[in-house]
């Protein structure tokens, strides 16, 4: 590890707060991201994700609170702290008037990478991101996916220990998104710490060691995706389809069922006791002369957790209790 202080946590934020006039965009949040971790940062639009990332990367100053990056205090040592991180902002921001090669060289110069190393690194990154044959073309001729790949390559020019990515795959074609996710996995295997903001729950579920969910500027939950899902009781589902239409009120009376929702030819039974519910469902079908076409049990997804915590705009006391201890981690 180069130019970093000996520290367990690569990213630490304490009491991070950002006010815009009367509006509190981010409200006293604490974040700790360990070395080598992929940390997902999820939240609905306007929850304070981008503001938080901008404070963590030193782009804007917090109203209150402290940020340490690789042991460097971001306020007192901003240059050293920024030298160990690469940043991929929400919107692609390569210079359109420069070629891919010139954009990469500019990054190398801004981050103090020696010229000889910069050339070798740029070549390697252009090949890795499938842009080598377009390296001398101005980026204004690039597609959105190509621009985003270039912006990620730019953020890697200094071989940073920490990478911040704000919605890196948003709006990209499947191939570009897949390539970016693959690169993130490789970087993580190389020991890089990654702070990932995303709207895609499946992406966070696949990539992240831990995720934080932010809502109304406050952290609602922090834990590994699996633990978050396990903590959310009442989100187990039984997916069933019948050969004939079924009255949902009959299904609501089944043991353990808390909610019934229909979607297409499938019906979802939300239950705390999936085994018992299935038993009663089969009995009910037998006595009612209905035939089950398919039957699946589904565990809660990260999206279910996210919707539960953010969907109604408020985090309920019950939800908060269910996640007790997670936010303090």
């Amino acid at each position: 590890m180069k130019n970093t202080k000996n520290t367990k946590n690569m990213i630490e934020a304490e009491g991070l707060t950002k006010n815009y006039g009367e509006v509190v965009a981010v409200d006293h949040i604490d974040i700790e991201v360990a070395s080598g971790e992929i940390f997902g940062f999820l939240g609905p639009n306007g929850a304070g994700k981008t503001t938080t990332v901008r404070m963590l990367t030193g782009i804007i100053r917090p109203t209150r609170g402290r940020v340490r990056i690789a042991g460097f205090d971001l306020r007192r040592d901003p240059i050293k702290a920024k030298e160990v991180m690469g940043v991929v902002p929400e919107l692609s921001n390569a210079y359109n008037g420069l070629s891919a090669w010139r954009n990469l060289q500019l990054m190398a110069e801004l981050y103090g990478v020696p010229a000889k190393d910069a050339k070798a690194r740029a070549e390697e990154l252009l090949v890795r991101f499938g842009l080598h044959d377009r390296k001398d073309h101005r980026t204004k001729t690039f597609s959105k996916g190509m621009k985003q790949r270039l912006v990620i390559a730019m953020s890697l020019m200094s071989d940073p220990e920490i990478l911040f990515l704000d919605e890196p795959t948003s709006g990209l074609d499947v191939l570009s998104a897949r390539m970016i996710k693959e690169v993130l996995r490789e970087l993580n295997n190389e020991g890089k710490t990654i702070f990932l903001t995303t709207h895609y729950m499946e992406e966070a579920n696949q990539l992240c060691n831990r995720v934080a969910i932010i809502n109304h500027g406050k952290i609602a939950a922090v834990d590994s995706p699996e633990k978050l899902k396990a903590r959310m009781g009442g989100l187990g589902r039984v997916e069933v389809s019948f050969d004939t239409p079924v009255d949902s009120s009959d299904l609501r009376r089944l043991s353990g069922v808390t909610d019934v929702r229909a979607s297409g030819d499938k019906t979802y039974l939300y239950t705390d006791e999936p085994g018992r519910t299935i038993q009663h469902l089969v009995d009910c079908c037998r006595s009612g002369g209905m035939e089950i076409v398919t039957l699946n049990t589904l565990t809660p997804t990260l999206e279910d957790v996210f919707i539960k915590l953010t969907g109604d705009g408020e985090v309920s006391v019950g939800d908060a209790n269910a996640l007790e201890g997670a936010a303090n981690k």
Partner: protein
Amino acid sequence: MDQMRRAFAIAKKDVRIYYLNGPVVIFGILAPAFLFLAFMIGRDLPVDFLIAGLLGMTVFFTSTSITPVIAPTETQTRNLERLAAAPVSITTILFGDMIASVFFGIAISLVPIFLGVAFGVAIAHPLILAVGIVLAAFCFSALGLVFSSTPTSMTSTVMMISMLTKFPLVFVSGVFIPIQEMPSWGRALASLSPLTYITDLCRYCIEGTCANYYPVPLDICALAVFLVIFMVTAVKLHERSLPMRL
């Protein structure tokens, strides 16, 4: 030293992107050129008087044309966020923009000098002229940075503010009317304009020792003082406006 190298990297980027930018060419070269032609045509004025005025005006317009374009453009294209995330201070970013602007100002200033030489004008004090032009280019680039601190992504807004300030300055700075021939209130006004001092210095270097109004050391000191004032003001204003532009 690291920050200085990074400032030059920013300057290189500016040179590649902004030198042939539309507003730069229009407001930095074409507008002052036509203004000068409008003043010159139909008047029987000595060539050395015209060239000295044109030179002062050229340094002024060209050096103040790049920096006001960079900040709003990079605000709009979100490139400013890229720089704000990089390990460079605001002063480094501004200094980089300033270097690009200075080179542009100096390079275009060679045009009236060569034009003058072609018309038989002799440069009496080339070294002092070179020092004056370089100093003035820094000073006016810093003035451009003051304009560009406006928290907007609209280049036209910054250019409008810039032109509203620059055009009146041209008329009170001895470019078209020598300071000696101005009324006392005009001379007082002229003393507040940085353009006055480079124009005065150009007259000394091109027209001869009696053509200037202020002593040469005063011209140079005044440009240096204006440079410091503009640069300090620009850094303070950009520190305040940067978060609003991100």
